[in-house]
Every structure is written in structure tokens, then in C-alpha cells.
């Protein structure tokens, strides 16, 4: 089991945003998380790599409890790549520097070796000619593909995507989804928050529907989309499909 979330609760002050969440993600599984705005999807992802501290419950990454005070969170995060809606590329560095920084500083990989790997990743996302460009000169779709390459450079065992295409112009969405589809095909374990139902159908092994801080329903994509069991799922799907 790659990710195991047990009885997770998360509150911001008085506001309980995640109410007893239980999920597990197996190796090479692609889990898609859908749900209305404010349902807690981002918060769940952010708890999984401890960008938010959890209020109660447990999160295990490859069996190691990350909510344990003694857990080395920097070490665990190396195995958990994250891609953000707003890309969060480092604007003061070139594309190449963005990609090689963490491998060099965190994993202590030699510059030449990190560079070689970075070029390989840039080829994979179709942007090798942008190695020396600065992020500000790239389109949104290009930025997001670089952000994916940057996360992959740490050779993570799993990847979390938080609405990776929501900030993109429609014509850019396809390029980013293609990269993600290939990643899924290569066997990456992925948790993807998205509104792209086509993507969920095509590459998702399982879809989780969240609402109001609960997991309301989960099933394999075809089942969930064509035969939802819960009223809230039906109501949501009738709006987005």
C-alpha cells in the first residue's frame, strides 16, 4: 500500500474541513478525486504530504506514519511529488535550474548527472528547447509540464496533482493531460484532483467523490459515472457531465 489515510480529521480553527476520511492507494493505482468547491479535496492532498498538519487520525506513506513527530518529513516528501494548480515554478531560475535544484541540494546529486536527467525529463514533456528559458516566458501549459518534470526529477514513488489544468487556457489542457496519461501508463502511482471527467474515465482506476469533508462515494470510473449510488453524487455529476 502506497498511501493509507485512516480516520483523518482536519480543522481550520472551528471549521472542520475533513471529517473522518479513510482512503488507501495501491502501488501503480491512479485515483481521481472529484467534488464541489470547498469539499476538502485540496486539503486532503495537502495533508498527505504534510503541507497541512492533521488534526487527528493517521496517514501512512509506504507504511510509515508521517503524522508521527519522529518521522523525517523531508525524506518522506522526496517520495511524494506534488503538482499545484498555480504551477509554483521558481521565477528567478531557468527551467533547467528549476528542475535540478532539489536533486542537487536535497539528494546531493552531481550537477552534470542532474542535468542529464533534467534534459531527459524535458524531452519527456516535450519542452527540451525551453531548458534555458525563464518561467515568465512560458505559457501556462508549458509551465505546468515543467512543474511536472521538476517533481519527477526527484524520482518520487507517487505523485499528487491538485487541479493541474484548472488554471490553463482550454487549448493547453490537452498537452498537460497527455503527459499525465503517459505517466500513468508508465506505472506511476497518482492521486489526481481534477474536473476533467474524460481523464478520470480514461486513466482513473478509481474515482472518489468528496462533499462537505466526507468521501461520499467511490468506485471504478465507469460504474461511478454511469451508476452513482448516492443522491449527492448524482446531483454533482448531473452538473459536470
Amino acid at each position, binding site marked *: 500500500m502506497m498511501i493509507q489515510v485512516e480516520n483523518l480529521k482536519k480543522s481550520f480553527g472551528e471549521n472542520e474541513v475533513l471529517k473522518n476520511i479513510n482512503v488507501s492507494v495501491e502501488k501503480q493505482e491512479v485515483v481521481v478525486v472529484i467534488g464541489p468547491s470547498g469539499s476538502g479535496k485540496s486539503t486532503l492532498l495537502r495533508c498527505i*504530504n504534510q*503541507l497541512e498538519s492533521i488534526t487527528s487520525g493517521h496517514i501512512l506513506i509506504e507504511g510509515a506514519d508521517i503524522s508521527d513527530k519522529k518521522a523525517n518529513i*523531508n*525524506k518522506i*516528501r*522526496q517520495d*511524494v*511529488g*506534488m503538482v*499545484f494548480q*498555480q504551477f*509554483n*515554478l*521558481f*521565477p*528567478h531560475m531557468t527551467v533547467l535550474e528549476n528542475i535540478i*535544484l*532539489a536533486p542537487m*541540494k*536535497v*539528494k546531493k546529486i552531481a550537477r552534470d548527472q542532474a542535468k542529464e536527467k533534467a534534459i531527459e525529463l524535458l524531452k519527456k514533456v516535450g519542452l527540451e528547447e525551453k531548458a534555458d528559458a525563464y518561467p515568465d516566458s512560458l505559457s501556462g501549459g508549458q509551465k505546468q509540464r515543467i*512543474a511536472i518534470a*521538476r*517533481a519527477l526529477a*526527484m524520482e518520487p514513488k507517487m505523485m499528487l496533482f491538485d487541479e493541474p489544468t484548472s488554471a490553463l487556457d482550454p487549448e493547453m489542457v490537452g498537452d498537460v493531460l497527455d503527459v499525465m496519461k503517459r505517466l500513468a501508463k508508465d506505472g506511476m502511482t497518482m492521486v489526481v484532483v481534477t474536473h476533467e471527467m474524460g481523464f478520470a474515465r480514461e486513466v482513473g482506476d478509481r474515482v472518489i467523490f468528496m462533499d462537505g469533508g466526507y468521501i461520499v462515494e467511490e468506485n471504478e470510473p465507469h460504474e461511478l459515472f454511469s451508476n452513482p449510488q448516492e443522491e449527492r453524487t448524482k446531483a454533482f455529476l448531473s452538473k459536470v457531465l
Partner: protein
Amino acid sequence: MGFRFDLIWGYGPLFLSGMMFTIGFSLAGIVFGTILGLIVSFGKMMKNKWLSAPFVCYIGFFRGTPLFVQILIIHFGVVPKILGQSNAIVAGVIALSLNEAAYIAEVFRAGIQSIDEGQTEAARSLGMSHWQAMRYIILPQAVKRVLPPMGNEFISLIKDSSLISAIAAPEMTYVATEMNAQYTLVWEPYLTIAFIYLILTLIMSFIVHRLERRMATK
């Protein structure tokens, strides 16, 4: 009676040494103030309220009281307590540095906090520690942003260093007051130093602009 250039010329060596002292005090204030200011700004940003409290008080005191009063306290109170005797140069350097640090600390803090939270999150999600994220991601971006306001602080410091003439530190304004006392001349000494201060602050803003341009293209 005309403008007595001849007397200014006669005071030339004194003005020159006064100017060197003004430059020295300013540079000391800039260097020590920046180093201390960086420390104080990190102190103030600590999450633990008890740990950050002394830094908050420090900034509050030095920004909330007149520099002139600080100079008097340090010259007549603090320095004699430490050295056993008064010393205007030491007192001047300490007062300017401590005061500058409080302002620089606030400039740094504003600069660091102006960097988008997502930058830190991206860095941390790649496995970087808090300090690695600070060093490689946040500080390089913050430095670019704080350069213009820091330049303004440095310019203020050059001008404010004139206040230490009150404790007879041998800087430029003190030389001018001496000349004023000796010849009962007003325009000659004070216009002369005003002119020199202007040159110094212009040089300072030129340097800051150059740095800004260099950083912008990098």
C-alpha cells in the same frame, strides 16, 4: 559682504576629514545595521510568540523613539557604562547601527512575506528543508524586492548621521558647526555640507540603481 570661498577653502582639510567620518559612520551603520537587521527580522518572524517578543520590542523601541534621543542615551549612558568613559565615535556607530537594524528588519520582513506562499510549498514538497527553501527560493527573490526600500533606508542613514554632531563626533556637520562658531558665518559652512550630503546621497542612489538593474537582468 560676498560669499567667503576663501574661508571654505581654508577649512577644506577639516571638511574633507569630516566627510570621511560621515562616510565611515554611514558605511558602518549600513553594514552592521544590515547584518543585525537580518537577524532581527528572522527573530520577529519566529512562530513562538515568547521567542519573537524581544525582537518585536527592539523594533518598536528603535522605530518609536527619536534617533537623537537614542544617540544621547547611548553616548551618555550605555558607552560610559561599557568602556568606562565616553567615546563619540563608538557611540555614533552603535546608535546608527542599532537604529538602522530596526528599519532594515522591517524591510526584510516585508520582503520575505511578500513572496508567494506557493514558492515555499513547492520547495518543501520537493523535500527541501525550511532553511533550504529560505536560502535557495525565498531569499533570492526577496533580495530583489527589498533593494529599492533598502536604498531609501541607506540614504536616510547618510542624512541622519548628521545628528551625531550633537555628541561632538568629528563628522561633517560637526565641522560645519565649528566653522560657524569660529567665523559667525552661516551660509558658507552649512551650504557646503548640504552640497556634500547631496553628492553622497546621489552616489548612494546611483549604486542602488545599478544593483537593481544588474539583478533585474540576471
